[in-house]
């Protein structure tokens, strides 16, 4: 929208983000306001502590992992561009406008969303979900009445179901295959305010 793009001038990489992600100008402006709100000391960067102040995120069983997804290993700060690009994973896939110069697959495609979910499991980024990683996630999502033995069984079964090449771990392709019947786009999308 023409009138809004003038407001985008003070947003770093505003035009670039408009092109790369699927967000509209209004959405990017809103996200920028949110970014500024979270950035309490106005450094222009977010740190993990800033994200932890979000209420209800601490009630989320995988809250820490979600925050971790914004900060890949080695990066301690998050600038606005990365913030938006990660959030772009959650756009509904049908909001893909034809963008000139869309080179690789857009972040909000099914593969992109699956990759995000995969990385929530795969904390050491070796491309596979090992049994331990699966166990950790299961443990955090299940109530405390579940015994360790039950957890082990569940993890065991999950790996058995998905593991095609018998390496006792779930690779990304196996992950994707196990979820082929699920409407990923519906499950991993957020309706952003216009």
């Amino acid at each position, binding site marked *: 929208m023409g009138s809004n793009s003038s407001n985008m001038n003070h947003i770093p990489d505003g035009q670039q983000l408009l092109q790369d992600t699927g967000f509209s100008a209004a959405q990017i402006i809103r996200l920028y306001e949110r970014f500024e709100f979270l950035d309490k000391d106005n450094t222009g960067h977010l740190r993990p502590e800033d994200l932890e102040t979000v209420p209800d995120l601490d009630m989320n069983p995988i809250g820490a992992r979600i925050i971790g997804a914004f900060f890949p290993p080695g990066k301690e700060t998050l600038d606005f561009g990365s913030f938006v690009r990660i959030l772009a994973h959650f756009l509904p896939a049908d909001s893909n406008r034809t963008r000139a110069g869309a080179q690789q697959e857009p972040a909000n495609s099914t593969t992109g969303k699956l990759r995000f979910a995969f990385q929530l499991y795969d904390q050491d980024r070796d491309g596979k979900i090992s049994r331990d990683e699966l166990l950790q996630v299961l443990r955090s999502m299940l109530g405390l009445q579940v015994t360790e033995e039950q957890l082990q069984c569940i993890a*065991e079964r999950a790996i058995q179901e998905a593991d095609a090449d018998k390496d006792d771990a779930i690779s990304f392709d196996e*992950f994707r295959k196990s979820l082929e019947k699920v409407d990923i786009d519906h499950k991993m999308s957020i309706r952003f305010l216009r």
Partner: protein
Amino acid sequence: MSIRCRFHMEYLVFIVLLILLHGSRGEVPTRPISAVTILPPVKPDDGPQAFPNADKANLPVFTMDYPRIQIPFEITLWVLLASFAKIGFHVYHKITIWVPESCLLISIGLIVGGIMFSVHEEPPAVLSSNVFFLYMLPPIVLDSGYFMPTRPFFENIGTVLWFAVVGTLWNSIGIGMSLFAICQIEAFGVQDINLQENLLFATIISAVDPVAVLSVFEDVSVNEQLYIVVFGECLFNDAVTVVLYNMFNFVAEMPVVEPVDVFLGVARFFVVGLGGMGFGVLFGFVAAFTTRFTSRVREIEPLFIFMYSYLAYLVAELFAISSIMAIVTCALTMKYYVEENVSQRSCTTIRHVVKMLGSISETLIFFFLGVVTITTEHEWNWGYILFTLLFAFIWRGLGVLVLTQIINPFRTIPFNMKDQFGLAYGGLRGAISFALVFTLPDNIGRKQLFVTATIAIILFTVFLQGISIRPLIEYINVRRTNRNLDTINVEVHCRLMEHTIAGIEDLCGQWSHFYWKDKFMKFNNRILRRILIRDNRAESSIVALYKKLELQNAMEILDTVTGDISAAPSIVSLYRGNKVAAKPKKKFKAADLKNMHDILSKNMYKIRQRTVAFTGKHALPNDSQTKEILIRRHASIRRSLRPGSFQTTVVPKSHKYFSLPAGKSLDSKFPPGRLSYTGETLKPLLTPQHLMSPFDFTLIWQKTSFLLHLDTTSPFKTK
């Protein structure tokens, strides 16, 4: 804790009964139809009854004085009867799934009413307006207000007010006008009802009733948004109804309506609505302030909650402003501060008693609705009543449709068609309409007709819509695929994705309301908390909640020590068979799979929002999920603070007091060697797989209070 709690409950029930007694004794029936059964109590002669006459020769060994105890006795019997009915329903569980409790209670009431009618006995004048509005309605509204989830409520406040105010207006005027049009038709013989009376009647029956709606909605898992909007609408349309009712009542007696009266009506609406809220907030703050000083008199702390909220209600009634809004806002305001000030036990007592009173009131209301239906005189008019039903339905549906179209653009999560259907169909009328119709002045010629029509509508909506809403919603909802066809993988991953979405949404924030909430929180922290809360330390939510929960947790662990040891047999066999973790290729039988699915579905944490089956109106809110998550998180925070002094899995492993290690019996004593004070706070409490005998309780208890010294804040004060 149980003795104290019982004492509180008896105390409060006693007060309630006293109030009821006093009220019904002084009751003057407003309607000539059903007379009061309550005979004026026989004045006892001077001196105890055992010695009535000085000239009687013998000492009476056994006397009976029924009239003296008649009123409290009858009240108690009625309450017990209604409660037995309630117990009875739950014996056969399947019934309550399909038929909401309100319907069942009304049916029982109808039966009892039939019995009384055939014996030519009059029912007690319980549903006269005074008793209803002053004694039976406040506990229910207090219950609803106290347990209202505040955050979703405030996020949806615009929608709620929109539906409550504009929706009720739309309904009243629409139904009134259409009925007036119908009245013009000669065939129905109701030409003598003029426009004002029609509007008055329409106002009465367009009041959506919180009691009826909530008791139906609890059985149907609706999503949180819908629940909040319907809930809020019920509570707040009281303001509109009161204004309209008084206005039309007043106007019905006036020959001519002038524009200035309409203007005054609007002004009155604001007075009523805002006044109600204002009083509620005022009393809430006063209550919070009072509890700041009650640390020495813990026993009467719950009393303040009830007295202040009731006072708010009565004062609002005094000024004829919306008392329901007053009590709801009072409870909302009060809850936040009071729960910080009062002791743990008082907190529990308050919650229990609020639930209990609300439950009793609701049961009684529906019960008496049934009873009085049989015993009042009816005037039936096919045309009028059927058209009333029709119009009520149509106008509500239209209203919801139009209003959602207008408000959807402003909502973060717009209402889809299913939600709209739920909103429209869930507009049940109930006892409020009933009580209102009885307060109609007698100079309205067709009052009997109105009464009958109101009863007809209430029964229709409660029975038909109440029973059918569940299958309809299930039919309309696209249900998930049958769980057993999902693999474990899919289930786990889907839940992970749902949590992710919830987390990201939190991260992005609820944008539209954020600004005000933020401002309010700043104001709250700076000013309000300092005045109203006793030990005000600016704590992070985790720390404050953790302390409280840890205490509760400790109590609960020890409570459930002798609890359910019965692990499913197949799990035990799995345990024995799976000792070596690196065992390749276990074969999983179908029974094991089913167990796993059951475990997952029961134990996976629910998402914060989405389709939430509410724990139910009659159950206390369940915050064990929050507890566990917070405990884990705090454990991991502490772990990161002190690397190396913890074992790898502190918390999760240790709660498993359900699994008996092989060879141990129930009475294995808690090995004292495990207690250590330095650093490992959670370990002694949550000893891995050793069960504690109750004798260790005191030992643990002392250690707990010492151990909850958190290194980041000031020492924990035992309450």
